[in-house]
């Protein structure tokens, strides 16, 4: 398809959770680990008489009339602030600094005074019936294929509760996601690019966020909204794309949908898992935002900006070159690890462990990809500590690199088993060379008349994962030659 001819225009809005110690407006943890709710709070929400007129309120009322919202409250992860029973605390300074960092990396202008706004939401996902949000940076850009892509704004906002069920207007939410800091990056209109290139731009935006080392990773921590229009059509907004790899497909399908529909309405659609979209609601009219009056606006001092500018993370292209030169990675692997979720962890471990950096990079890039694709495992659940322990075992020779995927798989399938016990549980004890020689000698005895490569195969089958394959080949050859 010729997207230039179709005049494809896209706008991206990328939301990424921050990995701060506490939530945006209270001291609750941003981890959502608790399984069993402490209690359930039941609420209703009401239309508010607004300046936007009766119709708007009537529509709100119609929508809210038969809706009840249940909120599951979790120990340590929710307090009176999340339940809308206490005014918010002062803004989390750590979150503000991370977002300032991101805004500066996108070359944004930072306002001298940041105003927290309330954005009205009526789906119950916020117990207060509005979401708090603030613009931290404006008018930035990033460079892509020699062109400037405008960054309209970088904002800091609170995440909403996660919906877990709906039945007859009874909507149930987990409250612990509410209040986790989110950075929102909105681009200007992106035009003159193909769907793949738009996806690539989204990827780079995500990478820049990750380069701060202070964003969360894993399913649900990043969500993308998309605006799509083609010549002669209306702007359609698609919300909640969780899988970045789906972006180009969604754009292609939406363009097809628009081309084949007689009339495209201005509307909001939600992303399905297969890349198609469904209608959710008409686009909201005027922005329903008014100031948060419980806490004062924040002054951003020049000193703070200077301090953050002096400590910006290394630009990604420089990092790729440095990994190649310092850690002797191939160009391809260096690019892959920088684009992954783990460049910082990789670098830290490469310095800490006496293991070839390319082996470590391969674990983060290829092993994890395989486990996810082939075994459908949620590799995001692996902690920094898990990786550290696996690498320690590898360095000490307790496991061989061939068994790393098995160890990680076992770990994900049996989260309650201690890492130290995994080796035993899996029968992964390594063999000493003497033990290997015995196995080789026995095998040769049992398989008289078999050629060398057959013997190697049988021995490999017996000792796989217990000793590295090069040693096996070497030992079998030596013993074979002794006899024949």
């Amino acid at each position, binding site marked *: 398809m010729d997207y230039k001819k179709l005049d494809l225009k896209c706008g991206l809005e990328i939301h990424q959770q921050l990995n701060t110690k506490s939530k945006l407006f209270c001291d609750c943890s941003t981890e959502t680990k608790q399984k069993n709710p402490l209690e359930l709070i039941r609420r209703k929400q009401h239309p508010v008489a607004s*300046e936007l007129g009766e119709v708007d309120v009537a529509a709100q009322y119609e929508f809210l009339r038969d809706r009840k919202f249940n909120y599951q409250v979790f120990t340590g992860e929710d307090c009176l602030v999340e339940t809308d029973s206490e005014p918010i605390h002062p803004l989390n300074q750590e979150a503000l600094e991370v977002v300032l960092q991101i805004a500066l990396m996108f070359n944004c202008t930072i306002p001298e005074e940041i105003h927290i*706004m309330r954005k009205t939401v009526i789906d119950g996902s916020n117990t207060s019936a509005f979401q708090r949000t603030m613009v931290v940076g404006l008018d930035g850009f990033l460079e892509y294929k020699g062109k400037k892509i405008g960054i309209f704004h970088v904002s800091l906002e609170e995440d909403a509760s996660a919906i877990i069920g709906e039945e007859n207007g009874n909507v149930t939410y987990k409250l612990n996601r509410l209040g986790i800091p989110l950075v929102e990056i909105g681009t200007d209109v992106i035009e003159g690019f193909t769907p793949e290139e738009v996806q690539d731009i989204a990827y780079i935006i995500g990478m820049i966020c990750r380069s701060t080392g202070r964003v969360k990773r894993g399913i649900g921590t990043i969500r993308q909204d998309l605006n799509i229009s083609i010549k002669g059509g209306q702007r359609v907004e698609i919300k909640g794309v969780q899988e970045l790899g789906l972006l180009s497909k969604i754009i292609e399908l939406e363009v097809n949908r628009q081309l084949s529909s007689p009339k495209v309405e201005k509307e909001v659609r939600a992303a399905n898992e297969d890349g198609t979209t469904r209608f959710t609601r008409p686009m909201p009219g005027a922005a329903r935002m008014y100031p948060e009056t419980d806490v004062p*606006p924040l002054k951003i001092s020049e000193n703070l900006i200077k301090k953050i500018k002096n400590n910006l993370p290394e630009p990604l292209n420089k990092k790729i070159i440095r990994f190649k030169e310092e850690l002797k990675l191939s160009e391809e692997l260096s690019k892959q690890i920088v684009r992954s979720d783990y460049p910082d962890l990789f670098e830290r471990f490469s310095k800490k462990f006496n293991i070839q950096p390319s082996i470590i990079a391969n674990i983060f890039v290829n092993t994890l990809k395989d486990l996810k694709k082939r075994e459908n495992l949620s590799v995001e659940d692996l902690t920094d500590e898990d990786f550290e322990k696996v690498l320690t075992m590898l360095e000490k020779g307790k496991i061989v690199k061939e068994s790393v995927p098995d160890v990680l798989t076992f770990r994900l399938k049996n989260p309650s088993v201690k890492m130290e016990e995994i080796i035993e549980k899996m029968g992964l004890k390594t063999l000493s060379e003497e033990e290997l020689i015995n196995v080789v000698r026995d095998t040769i005895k049992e398989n008289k008349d078999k050629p060398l490569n057959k013997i190697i195969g049988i021995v490999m089958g017996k000792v796989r994962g217990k000793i590295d394959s090069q040693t096996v080949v070497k030992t079998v050859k030596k013993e074979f030659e002794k006899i024949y």
Partner: protein
Amino acid sequence: MYSSKVQKILKIKKIRVGDRIKLVKNKKSFEGILMPRIELGNQDCIVIKLDNGYNIGIEFEKGVNVKKIKTEWKISVGKGKKMDKIIFDKKLPFVSILGTGGTIASKIDYRTGGVYASFSAKDLTTQIPELKEIANVKTREVMNVMSEDIIPENWGEIARAVAKEINSGVKGVIVTHGTDTLHYTAAALSFMLRDLPVPVALVGSQRSSDRGSSDTVMNIACAANFVTNSDVAEVCTIMHGSMSDDYCLVVRGTKVRKMHTSRRDAFRSVNESPIAKIHWDKKKIEILNKNYRKRKDGKVKVDDKIDTKVVMIKCFPGLDPDIFDYYLKKGYRGFVVEGTGLGHTPTLGKFSFLPKIEKIVKKEIPVVMTSQCIYGRVHPTVYHNLRELSKRGVIFGEDMLPETAYVKLMWVLGHTKKIDKIREMMLTNYAGEINKRIESNEFLI
């Protein structure tokens, strides 16, 4: 308000709040609508609303260029109606909703964030649509005072306004009120409204009514149901009973206390069970405490004479008893002491209250003892120190809340200055303020 520096430049450039302006600073330009300056933050910062709805502040200093593009909004301060009436169904009875500064229906100006109260019955039913199935509504703003600024003189004003509504024949009255001192007003109305024939419900909200999560809607809806349909003729508060929007508690005006700074279910019944539970969804009124006066015919009498020269003194380790001299010199004629435990005050050395109390009582000025424990009854004779206080003529206020005893003493002093009569009246139960029997399940409820 913007600083004078900013106001001056806006005046020169003929720029008003609501105008679309362009601001250039350090070669960067910003365009948006000029917003009113909110109270907090740097008054030199010009606040503009960007086209995406966000506000930002740009500090005005030398080298900043401001230009008016056009007038975008004409912003005026919104005003609500002061009184109104709405008939939904001729068969339904009337209830009155009186405002004292707690908002019932609020309007918010989304452009500026300004919130103002509206007493238009239409706005009210837009916000609380189920009202039209319960009763016809009369609304009136009696005063517009924040709860913390209410003074004892306001209580009589509210009592008279309530009585006027009752005597005009309504089925019940709802008074909306800020929450901080709601329980003081509730106690005052309990003493001032004599021979009450219908229920009077005081209602507040812990989350302001401009937000979609406000507790106002359920509180008013439950109160409307209660004052229309129950047979209870008491002054009471009606507020959330739990964190959820499931039921409200009806608590006697003399037994209620705000027990939390911000939770919806802050208003709790002390030393007795709440009178009733109102289930919002099922519209069911469940009576929990049968000790109440029943609805009847007749008119209410207002007895609003009070003497406001009463003070409440909280007792704590190290308090200098000279504080009593200060109030005596100022002409105070009544003291309520929030004693420790069963009603103690220090009795040793320079911290002893005894000489002061002796001096006050000799002047025929009442000293009423209550407890800062909040729950439970004070006792005049259990310990030696209590007997010392009692001997000197301190009035032990039974299980009365300190706040209720404070309001009651003002009301009693409005009627008599004779110490024996004061003692008798303080220990007479006028409005359920004294409960002779406290049961084991009447604690922390």
